[in-house]
């Protein structure tokens, strides 16, 4: 889903409006809270995300007067705030990856499989099976490489947006992402399932 929805006011317009009408910021919360929560849950686990996701928006609300729309947009700005929060909870992140690395079949993942369209099921199984090895590999990545990788993969940000979120040059984003992906592929490549299921029997 693209944001803002077609015909709706832009995020930047809402943010500017919220300087005069603070309640306008609530719309940004509605648009992005679930996404920011999922990003945090992917890095810290759902329990920690429950506690921290609102902090991202409270922090953004307090800082909104310093947001400069000339150099970036609201969405990566929110992810940047979230990433800073993750950095302050690096032990929780390590614990979460350790838990994932130990875990076998996950009922959350299993539920996703049962409810997804059949065409997606094999992909879900592949991701589910790779999870423990992937979590171990993520835990071993340097923080700055992991930030870039997960802002790209979980936050679905572009190079330019990641650069804005982390306040680094785009070239740095490219090199960090390349390095992180190379390590991830090397680490969990062997754990990836060799065979897939074709559920339509073709």
């Amino acid at each position, binding site marked *: *889903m*693209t*944001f803002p*929805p077609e*015909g*709706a006011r832009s995020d930047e317009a809402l943010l500017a409006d919220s300087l005069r*009408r*603070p*309640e306008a*910021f*609530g*719309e940004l*919360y*509605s*648009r992005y*809270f*679930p996404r920011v*929560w*999922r990003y945090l*849950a*992917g890095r810290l686990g*759902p329990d920690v*995300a*429950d506690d921290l*996701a*609102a902090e991202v*928006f*409270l922090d953004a*609300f*307090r800082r909104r007067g310093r947001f400069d729309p000339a150099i970036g947009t609201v969405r990566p700005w929110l992810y940047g705030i979230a990433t800073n929060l993750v950095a302050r909870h690096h032990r929780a992140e390590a614990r979460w990856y350790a838990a*994932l690395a130990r875990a076998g079949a996950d009922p*959350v993942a299993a*539920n*996703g499989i*049962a*409810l*997804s*369209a*059949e065409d*997606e*099921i*094999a*992909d*879900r199984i*592949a*991701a*589910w099976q*790779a*999870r423990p090895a*992937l979590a171990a590999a*993520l835990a071993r990545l340097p923080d700055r490489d992991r930030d870039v*990788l*997960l802002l790209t*993969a*979980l936050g679905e940000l572009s190079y330019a947006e990641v650069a804005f979120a982390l306040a680094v040059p785009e070239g740095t984003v490219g090199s960090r992402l390349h390095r992180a992906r190379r390590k991830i*592929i090397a680490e969990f490549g062997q754990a990836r399932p060799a065979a897939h299921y*074709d*559920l*339509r*029997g073709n």
Partner: protein
Amino acid sequence: MPTLDDLELVRRALDVPGPRADVIAAGRDRLDALAAGQARALAAGPARRRRRLRVGAALACGAAGAAAAIAATLVVAHPHTGTGGTGEAVTSARPKQPAPAGSVQQAILTAAGSVSGDIMQITETTSGGPDGVGDGVIRYLSWPARPAFGQRVRVLSLRGALRVEETYAQPSQSASTVMRMGTALVINTSAKTWSRVLDRLTPSTPEMISLFLLDKSSILKFQVLNAHATLDGRAVIELSVPAAGQLRVLAWVDARTYLPLRMVKLHWANNPASRKQYDFAFLPPTPASRAALTAAVPPGYRHTPG
């Protein structure tokens, strides 16, 4: 065949279902309180602003109990989509309190059980498919709505000139993952032809819908987004349905009967603009309504190989 690149694999491996409704509401309350403090300070004017801002800062520092008491009326957008993101004619009066956990799900479960033997009518409207493939409207009649293992199922699908009647025995496992042997009668009213197929059938749309909305394991995971919404003038409860990956599934059940009225799947084809809307009706299985499930071949139609 699945073809995941490493970034997609990372995303899917770490993905979890969205936040609970009470977590969304609690965070919103904190933000509303903070915004209300600043709004009052702005309204008070420059002379009193400094003191008011200190009040706002105090609220931000964790005076959550006092903050929660401050009334703040904000425009509420859908937590997953933003205002109007689904294109629904939904007005979202913000509930004063979250719905009691479990009570709504239990009521929906009971309602779903009451229509297991009914005919489920679905109108599926698709847009944003890959290169437009699949876009359009299909009407389904499926009976029974929630079949038991081994029960005979009949599904009539109507799309443009095509009428397809499928019959099969309900397999024992999850309908989304199991092929079944059955027959399909295909009538093309444009070409005036018909064919009959005896083959493996893929799970039909009504089966998938049944899994999403009428199955206990799914219903118990529904999240109530708004217990006091309206949809096309009817009082409804707005729900989030757990789904995998980027797929977003929202549903609305009648606030009085707890039966599903509409479900929307967003981002169903790896395309942010892709959307499927399903509108539901449940019909008692009278002889007349059951007869409507049969796709009789009109006289003069030419038989073609299946």
